[in-house]
Structure formats: C-alpha cells, structure tokens
C-alpha cells in the first residue's frame, strides 16, 4: 500500500517536473556534486532541496522529509521547500498529491514546477564548472566575471587569476516575467548583452530589494543604437519574507536570494564587474569555430593598432564596419573624414593598448564582440590616455569595428 503511494507521488512529481530522470541521474553523478557543498555554502539550501527531491524519486520519503525539515530551518521562507514538504506530508496522510496540487492557482503551480525543474537540472548538469564561451579575455585588474543564463535561471561566477578563469559558484536567479531580450520599457524582459554592474546602491531601498541592488548599465551603446529602451535593470535581492522568487517573475531585473547575493557581494565590490546575460549559453571547447573567431579578433585588434600607429589611413579605416556608429551621430563617413583630417597632420604616432578585456557579445543575428582597453596615444600633436570600448561585428568573415568610444 505504502509502496504504491510512493510510486504515485514520485511519478507525478517526475512527470510534473518533466525531468530527464533516470537511474543514472539518481544513483550516480548528481550526488557527487552534493559533496562539494558544506553547510556554509549559500547553495547548501538548494542542495538540500534537490537531495530531498531525489530521495522522493527513490521512494525514500522519510529521508526526504528529514532533509526538507533541515532545509526549512535554514531557509524558513523557502516557498518551494514548503510545497515539497506539503506533498510529502500528504503522502503520509495517505492522500498523495500530484506535484503542487495543494496549490490552487495553476499559475503558481507552474511557477513552483519551473523553479523545481531549473534547480534540479542544475544538478543534472554534467560539467557545471566549465568556462562560458563568451568570456574571451579578462584583464588583470578584473578579478571576477559573472555570466547569467536566462534559460537556465542561473548566475555563474568566475574568478580571474592572472588571466586564468576559474569557476567559483553558480546560483539560481529570477529573471523577467516575459523572459529575455528586453526591447522596450515595461516589457518585463531581461536584457541580453554585456553589461557592467556598478557598486551597491547606498541609499535605503524598500524591503522588496532585500540585501541590496547593483545597477547594470542597460541600455548600453549597442542597445541604444538598436532603439532599445527602458532602464533600472538591477541585480538585487528578495523581500525579507521570501527566500526565492519563481524563475520568471521580475520586471526585467535579475533577482537572487539574499544569502546568494551576499555571497557574491565581494565579486561586485569593484563597481565594474562584467555581467554577461545570455539566453543561449555555450561553453569554451564546445565549438572550434567560436575559438577561431576569438583568435581572429585578437589578431585583428593588433592589426588595427598597427595600422593606426603606422598611419596607413586606408588600411586603418578598413577596420570599420559599414554600419559603424559612434557618439554624437557619427557614422562611418563622418568618422572617415575626421580620421583622414587628423592623420594627415599627425607624425610620430604611437599607440599602445593595455588591460584588454574581450567578450563575445550575445547576439542572434550576427557574431559580435565587445572589447575594452586602456589606450595610450602619442603623436606630435597629442598625448592622450583613455579607456576605450569597441563593439566588433563579423562582417563577411572579417571582424570590423561597429562602435568605438570612451568606456
């Protein structure tokens, strides 16, 4: 009798969460990833939730309930955990429920299901510690990089140790109600692109933002160019009565649990941490072509520098894309005229680039990259140091500069 009840519950849960649930997943690998957490890890709570769900998957109701109880001591406002506990208790009450059927609103049920799904899928991921493809190069003073995958509802954190990226941790996040690819004000979408998180807002914010808020520089130059608008895209926490929000629930902000946000606060303290948001995250080593594109851009950047330094104006200008834009409505023709005028008068030009960082720019329509560097320019007319930002686009298989301006 009890066995049948367990089976019912399990099957319903599994069916409801639409998981790639199989013996391997339950018996082997995922449990090894539990081992890497300890009680002090902010992900410990999620680890407990998933372990409990796996226990249910194996019909171990009592261990599942014990685990959930332990979890709720640590995160008393974890709604999904309360829900799983409710389902488990209903099984003990001999009234087994389909996943979340104790929840009357279908929309909320879907939310919980999705949260369970994305959290579990994280643990079914075979190699969560890979390096994301877009992280092409960080410079030495950038100690951390953040990559957010809106599809996985996940934020990945990496450290930069003298040019070598290392996976640190990853966290569940909530994104916009209507998903990714923000276009306009109020569309309740999270932007896709490369952004920088400024430091924590110091003013007192409503409880809604929880531990704090870190604004992102949406819309960036490319967003504005494309006519995207809206503002106030922040990385922030959850209200004090809420542990986590559903995977898609914000007005476009990226929302983390307060303990998780607190855990990554040191990585955000520089006020200039790159935050790459994508809805289609791939990993380094997945594609040879991506690797070639990266190498090509590194070479092209150097060629551009040399062509500029040698004052070969035609070759220098050939690096700019037909759709080039810069600040103040500058287009390619205006840029060319301006550069030709300057370069005809300049002598002894020296251009040095330092602290280069380079990321693939998430874009569906074309291959793009964003590059920033410290530029040290010297000529008979001018000596200038600045930090510059360029957007590059792959045009006829060649990297071209789409935008250039101060960073």
């Amino acid at each position: 009798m009890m066995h049948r009840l367990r089976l019912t519950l399990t099957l319903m849960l599994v069916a409801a969460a639409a998981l790639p649930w199989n013996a391997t997943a339950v018996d082997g690998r995922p449990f090894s990833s539990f081992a890497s957490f300890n009680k002090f890890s902010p992900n410990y709570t999620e680890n407990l939730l998933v372990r409990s769900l796996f226990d249910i998957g194996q019909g171990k109701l009592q261990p599942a309930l014990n685990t959930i109880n332990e979890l709720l001591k640590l995160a008393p406002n974890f709604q999904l955990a309360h829900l799983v506990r409710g389902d488990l208790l209903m099984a003990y009450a001999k009234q087994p429920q389909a996943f979340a059927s104790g929840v009357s609103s279908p929309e909320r049920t879907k939310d919980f299901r999705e949260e369970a799904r994305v959290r579990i899928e994280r643990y079914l991921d075979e190699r969560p510690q890979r390096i994301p493809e877009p992280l092409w190069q960080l410079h030495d003073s950038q100690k951390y990089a953040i990559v957010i995958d809106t599809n996985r509802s996940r934020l990945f954190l990496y450290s930069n140790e003298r040019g070598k990226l290392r996976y640190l941790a990853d966290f569940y996040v909530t994104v916009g109600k209507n998903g990714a690819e923000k276009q306009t004000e109020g569309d309740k979408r999270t932007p896709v692109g490369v952004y920088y998180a400024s430091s924590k807002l110091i003013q007192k914010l409503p409880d809604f933002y929880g531990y704090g808020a870190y604004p992102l520089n949406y819309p960036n130059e490319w967003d504005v160019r494309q006519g995207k608008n809206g503002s106030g895209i922040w990385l922030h926490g959850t209200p004090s009565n809420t542990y986590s929000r559903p995977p898609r629930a914000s007005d476009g902000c990226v929302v983390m649990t307060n303990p998780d946000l607190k855990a990554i606060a040191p990585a955000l303290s520089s006020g200039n941490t790159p935050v790459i948001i994508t809805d289609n995250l791939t990993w380094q080593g997945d594609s040879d072509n991506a690797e070639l594109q990266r190498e090509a851009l590194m070479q092209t950047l150097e060629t551009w520098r040399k062509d500029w330094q040698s004052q070969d104006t035609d070759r220098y200008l050939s690096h700019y894309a037909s759709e080039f834009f810069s600040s103040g409505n500058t287009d390619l023709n205006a840029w060319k005229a301006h550069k030709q005028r300057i370069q005809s008068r300049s002598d002894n030009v020296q251009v040095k680039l330092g602290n280069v960082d380079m990321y693939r720019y998430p874009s569906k329509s074309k291959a793009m990259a964003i590059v920033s560097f410290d530029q040290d320019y010297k000529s008979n007319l001018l000596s200038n140091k600045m930090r510059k930002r360029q957007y590059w686009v792959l045009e006829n298989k060649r990297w071209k500069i789409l935008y250039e301006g101060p960073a």
Partner: protein
Amino acid sequence: MLTPRIFALLLLGMSYLPVAHADNLKEIVQLANSGQATQALERLDTHIRANPKDAQAIFTRGVILAEVGKRDEAIKSFVSVTEMHPNLPEPYNNLAVLYADQGQYDKAKKALETAIKTHPSYATAHENLGDVYARQASEAYDKALQLDNSNSRAQNKLSMIKGLFNGSYKPVIVGNKEQKPAEPAAKPAETAKPAEPAATPTPAAPAADSADPAVVAAVNAWAAAWASQNVDGYLASYASSFKTPKGEARSDWENLRRERISKPAKISVDLSNIKVKMDGDKARVSFQQSYRGGGLAQRTSKTLFMVNSGGKWLIEQEIADN
C-alpha cells in the same frame, strides 16, 4: 465520527466498574449533552474525588473539558488516564487531537503512534494520524503560497476539533463506514471486547421528539451514498422539485455533482448535531457536515428541506453556510 465510538466503548466497556458509577456517569453525560457542561463537570469532580481511580470518569471529564475549550485541563485528564491504563489507545487518541489543535504536531503524532502500537488496527488513530499529516501539509502549502491564513486557520482548527469531538455524547451518523468491508479496524480494540455491542452507533437521535425516523434514515442514506461515491444513489435522494443552488438546470447541476463526487479518490462525509423539525409531509433537517475528499477538508452547517414523496423522504432544497 471518531470519538463517539471510543466513548461508548469506554462507557460500557469497563465492566469491572461498579454499575452505580456507570449510571452516575450516564446521567452526567446526559447533563453535558443538554448543554449544562458546568454542572456536569461539578458532578464529575465530586465523583472523581470520591473515586480517584475511576479512569472512565476522568476520561469523561477530559472529553467535556475539551468540548468547552479547556484544552490544557483536558490534556491533564487524558494524561492521567494514560498513566492508569497505558495500554488503552483512546486517551492517547484524544490527547493527539488536543495536541494537534495546539499545533504540537510531533506530540500528536507520538501519541497516535503509541495508540497504534498497542492497537495496530485502531482505525480512529490511523485516520487521525492522517489528519495530523494533512493539517501539517495544509500549513506547508499556505507557507508555500505565503498565505497569511492565521485567521482562517484558527477557524479551521477549531472546527476540526469540533469535528472530532462534537456529538461525542450523541450517536452520530457515520457516512461511509458501512461501505468499507475492507476496514477491519472498524472493530473496536481487542482489549475492550465486551464493549462491542455498543460500538455500533444507533441511528441518529434527532433533537425533536416527534421526528420521523424515516427522515433521518433518508439523510443517512444520502450521506452514505455520497461518501461511497454512489452518484446514482446520491442523486436519487433529491426530489424532482429540487431547487438547484444557483437556479441552474437540473441536468447541469447533476453533471457537476457527478463530476465532483466521482473525482476524489476517497470521500468521507460525517454528520453530527442532527436536528429535525417536522411539518406534516415536510421536514427541515439541519446538521454539521464534515467533508473530506480530494485533499479538501470542509466543515459546513447545512440544512436540508425534505419532502415526503410517496413514503420516501427526498431533498427539495439544500442550503449550506460555512
């Protein structure tokens, strides 16, 4: 539906008690039944002072105290009965109900498990254990949804405990027990064998003297058909002149009921506090209805307007208020 059987069992089961005590207790119970709990308790206290080992009297005291809301005192009474008779499951069961009502679910479960340990087939304890889990589950769901249900929950709890205790002194119509031959636990506990005859509740004794027993029997059959998910039997309890709740077509209403009744895996319907008012070939029957099914537990005050149609009492109108 849970406690009356226990109570009757204790009342008649402890044959080693002097008959005079039992008679005295019967009177006290009748006193409590007629709404004079204070007097009943006074008499009980006197009785217990003279007979401090009278477990049955102490148990009765616990039941009445629980009924009037003095839970802490009721708990003391039941605890002292468990100390005198550690193998009797009933006081543990009632303790569990009180603990559960205070939100002390772990204690409630432990008490029920003790009852089940000594009497593995004790159906009431099993059902109550299920209730405790279900109640915890319902709280968990509320937390999941961040419902601040403190108000409605308080009501729920209260009505639940009424459900367990209400009508303790009155025989109550048991909805679906008869339909469940597979429930060996419906038999009283082994130790209390002599009590068996009393374990079968007599048909509901409605408050009105002149009540036609056929009316109560019809209500009884209606509840039983509902609980056993016998939709045809259930629908047959309604008169052709039945006024549908929202004025919808009879067929629409029937379809809705058919779906609602067939859907849950299990339904239980328990009626208590049945009152009948006769008016010739019409009758008004009001009662407390405890419904459980499909993960829903509902307690409703209901009134059925019945009509005698060719010797059969049928429902003309059904009015529920929560």
